[in-house]
């Protein structure tokens, strides 16, 4: 049974890696179009390794912004990754040395979501989900970024293939198992509404980050233990 479940986890990790990696094609092409060379584009994917931050970085450069503005925007968009490390503590700790350094680098939306989509009582599956997705996305994202940078604008729009909708659907599928309880459903609904209300008026990154406030409000009181998503 454990073997079967682990296989499902790895399958999920692999599909998420490939779907996310495919987006590296559009990042590579956009980055070169913004004026960075292939080496700089590859370095951004290796070092920053967070899609939203990277698109923002080249977006600011492409719009004529300066280096400081691009670093600030990219960093701000990556702040949510800091929260993920806290949420993943029961799954990953203890981590030390190189393992911690490497684990931190692959702490992104996808690895967090796949880890937490596994059953709460199966820490092994959650850990496998994190590492397989983190490393899988890292390999695919970096390889396909270079391909996109080399191909440049000759590639089409990923939206024509529905890849933008596929990303949203993948995150919905990954958060789905966590929505079994009323309180988690309420947190999800309030987070969606808050993020959408802020989207037209707040800078990119703020709407998603602001959802953390909903979590603070929901977790502040004393719900019965079964109401907390593990």
């Amino acid at each position, binding site marked *: 049974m454990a073997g079967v479940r682990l296989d499902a986890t790895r399958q999920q990790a692999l*599909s998420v890696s490939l*779907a996310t990696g495919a987006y590296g094609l559009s990042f590579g092409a956009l980055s070169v179009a913004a004026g960075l060379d292939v080496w*700089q584009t590859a*370095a*951004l994917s290796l*070092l*920053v*390794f*967070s899609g939203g931050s990277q698109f923002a*970085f080249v977006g600011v450069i492409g719009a004529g912004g300066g*280096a400081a503005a691009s670093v600030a925007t990219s960093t701000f968009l*990556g*702040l949510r990754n800091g*929260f*993920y*490390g*806290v*949420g*993943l*503590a029961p799954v*990953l*700790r203890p981590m030390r040395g190189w393992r911690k*350094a490497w684990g*931190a*680098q692959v702490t992104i939306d996808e690895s*967090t*979501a796949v880890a*937490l989509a596994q059953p709460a009582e199966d820490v092994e599956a959650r850990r496998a989900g994190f590492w397989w997705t983190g490393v899988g996305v890292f390999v695919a994202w970096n390889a396909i970024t270079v391909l996109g940078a080399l191909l440049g604008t000759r590639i089409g729009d990923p*939206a*024509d293939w*529905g890849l933008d*909708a*596929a*990303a*949203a*659907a*993948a*995150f*919905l*599928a990954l*958060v789905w198992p*966590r929505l079994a309880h009323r309180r988690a459903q309420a*947190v*999800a609904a*309030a*987070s*969606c509404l808050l*993020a*959408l209300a802020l*989207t037209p008026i707040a800078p990119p990154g703020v709407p*998603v980050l*602001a*959802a*953390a406030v*909903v*979590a*603070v409000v*929901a*977790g502040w009181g004393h719900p019965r233990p079964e109401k907390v*998503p593990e």
Partner: protein
Amino acid sequence: MSAYAWMWVAIVAAGLLSWATKLTGHSVPEAWLENPRVHRIAAFVTVALLSALVAVQTFASGGGLTVDARLAAVAVAAVLLWRRAPFIVVVAGAAAVAAGLRALGWG
């Protein structure tokens, strides 16, 4: 320094800050996490952020909100999830709906 060199400085700085952000989360002291309130909030944070991410990815478009093929695709994904379809079917189904609608010129 040349503009090219400054670009490299910016890339390395962005990389270091990104990694430091991620590392900070993994370095929050155990004692804090043992606080039941922090524990509950940490458990809700991932659900909150990922749900907000789904909403933004479905509706956001250039600083505003818009209803397009993505909403139809995510709605189909939700039905597939409710019917307990496998993960890959949900993702591929959503991509197919969005791609199909756009090929027809809708959204």
